[in-house]
């Protein structure tokens, strides 16, 4: 017999009788429920759903991609040079950067004035971390304060991303800034 649709179930007599299948389903659900309750009564792990976000899991993998961190230089400035590679590679278009020119620091004439990540759009793919040429953006395993009631309020700005978990790159040494060569060299 040709099926009306591709996954139409083929039911035998037992399924057609209906009530016995319903009882079988209730047995499955009830056994899981009773098993979980037994674990809860005997104080064992793995019984309950965590009440996110009040309760957080403590056993994220160290490879988990959670909230972003903007790293800082030794003087506390943001390491980002505002090259927009992360914003360009982002498949969700979640990153927006406003750049500013600062010629007082000749090693870093370009810096972000605002750095915004939209966590209502971010898909946590980690491309931004891979694209960054300066190791200025990282992802750590924790995922604090993600839920929200309003899409427009799920933006994380530069202050938050730099300071919620300050990180530095001790392996990265910058040349001490020299005075810009403005005059004609002798």
């Amino acid at each position, binding site marked *: 017999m040709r099926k009306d649709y591709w996954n139409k179930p083929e039911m035998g007599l037992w399924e057609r009788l209906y009530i016995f299948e319903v009882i079988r389903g209730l047995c499955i659900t009830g056994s899981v429920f009773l098993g979980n309750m037994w674990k809860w009564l005997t104080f064992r792990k793995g019984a309950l759903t965590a009440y996110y976000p009040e309760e957080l899991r403590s056993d994220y993998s160290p490879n988990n991609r959670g909230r972003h961190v903007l790293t800082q230089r030794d003087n506390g400035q943001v390491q980002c040079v505002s090259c927009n590679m992360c914003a360009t590679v982002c498949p969700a278009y979640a990153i*927006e950067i406003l750049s500013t*020119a600062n010629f007082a620091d000749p090693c870093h004439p370009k810096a972000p004035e605002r750095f915004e990540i939209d966590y209502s759009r971010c898909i946590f793919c980690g491309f931004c971390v891979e694209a960054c040429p300066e190791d200025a953006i990282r992802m750590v395993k924790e995922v604090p304060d993600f839920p929200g009631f309003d899409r427009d309020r799920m933006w994380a700005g530069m202050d938050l991303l730099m300071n919620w978990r300050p990180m530095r790159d001790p392996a990265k040494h910058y040349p001490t800034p020299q005075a810009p060569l403005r005059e004609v060299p002798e």
Partner: protein
Amino acid sequence: MIELKIDNKMVAANEGETVLQAALRHGIEIPHFCYHPCLSIAGNCRICLVKVGGRPKLMPSCNLAVAPNMEIETDTEEVAEARRAVMRFITLNHPGECGICDKAGECRLQDYHVRYGEPEPISIEPKSRKPKFYDLSPRILLDNERCILCGCCVRFTQEVSGSHQLGIVERGSHARVERLETGAFDDPYSDNVIGLCPVGALLSRDFLYRSRVWYLEPVRSVCTGCSRCCSVNVWRRNRHWHLRALGEELNRTAYRVTPFENPEINGPWICNKGYDLHRFMARQRVLQPMIAGRGASVEEALAEARRLLSESINPAALVSAHASNEELAAFQAALGPRLAVYSREDYRPAPGEAVEDGLLIRGVKNPNSYGVQALFGHRPYGVINGHDLLLVWGDNAEDTSFDGARVIRLASFGTQQEFTADVLIPVSTTFERSGSFSNFEGKVNRFDKVFDKPELVQHAGELFGRLA
């Protein structure tokens, strides 16, 4: 007509052409830095070396005149090795800071480095240091470390703009572009060197770090600065990269203006006023229709204007020289027979502005004065004519005396307070509509819509039918 063979393909070249020009015209790509079709041939970058049949050494194709039966090869291993070596030399002291360079994305050095260069330099010497972010003029920054000394900017000031204000001073790794005379680089065409520079050495201070270029897209438009009507590209944000957190208004902002190459009118150049067109369009706008100083809806303002027109005995219209040909035709069809028509100049030369020169800049500072003249003739308005109603179309009419006549104003720019008209209806700017202008030679140049108009602003071409 000379027949020669480039990469085993027969190519027809004109007498006196160079091999590079013939190849580019036939879609064969030969890399080049110092060659520009409008400038003299310098032949100093050496990236365009090609193999010529029968000659032992490679020849620079930009400086090689075509000859009959020449056999040119551009993709042999020998040529590729020469290009690698030239790229190695050019990038020897190039800082490689594409990440923070405004030119990245439209930089020929970047493109050629990906295509012809080597990923890692073999030099172990430290890169030479030169003045960075040097103020060449209030409009232009010069980064000498990025400069590859092709000399395009120098040749531009010598051959095109004729100001002779730039030159290359010192030698070797100290060589750098510098103003020759003490004083500013105040050429009225100075911003062209930014687009001319094949690398990011000459930077626009106005566009500096405002956006990466691949977030933007060009829209063809026309400069309204003078009656030359140069074709320009207005760069707006690509819709894929529309901003949300940083401000929606940036999506409706023109980021920069660059020349659109139009050989019939402006060639590849525009003047600095054209480069500032987006600032001209970003001035304070009139956004609210008004009746005698009070805000009103568009329908109320139109009804009041219709009432004034029907009550008037001797009405007249002052036609804007910023109106497109299409709007003028709509005006002519709807209101032309009923009104006495005068032409007016919206903008006059600002103090200190270059009024007219032999290259591009024209003395009439409005784009469509000639379109108005072709339709209505040259008739400036005088107060003696005794009109009791004036339809004043265009900006900057506030200092004109209308001698007690009632006034209907159609304007784009200004603050609401400075208008004393009986009826004020805001109209769209050049960026907000498409159309065409006739320049001083009668050549018609069209422009496309860059942004949507604000809600209460009207297109002038659609208003006149509703006023009649």
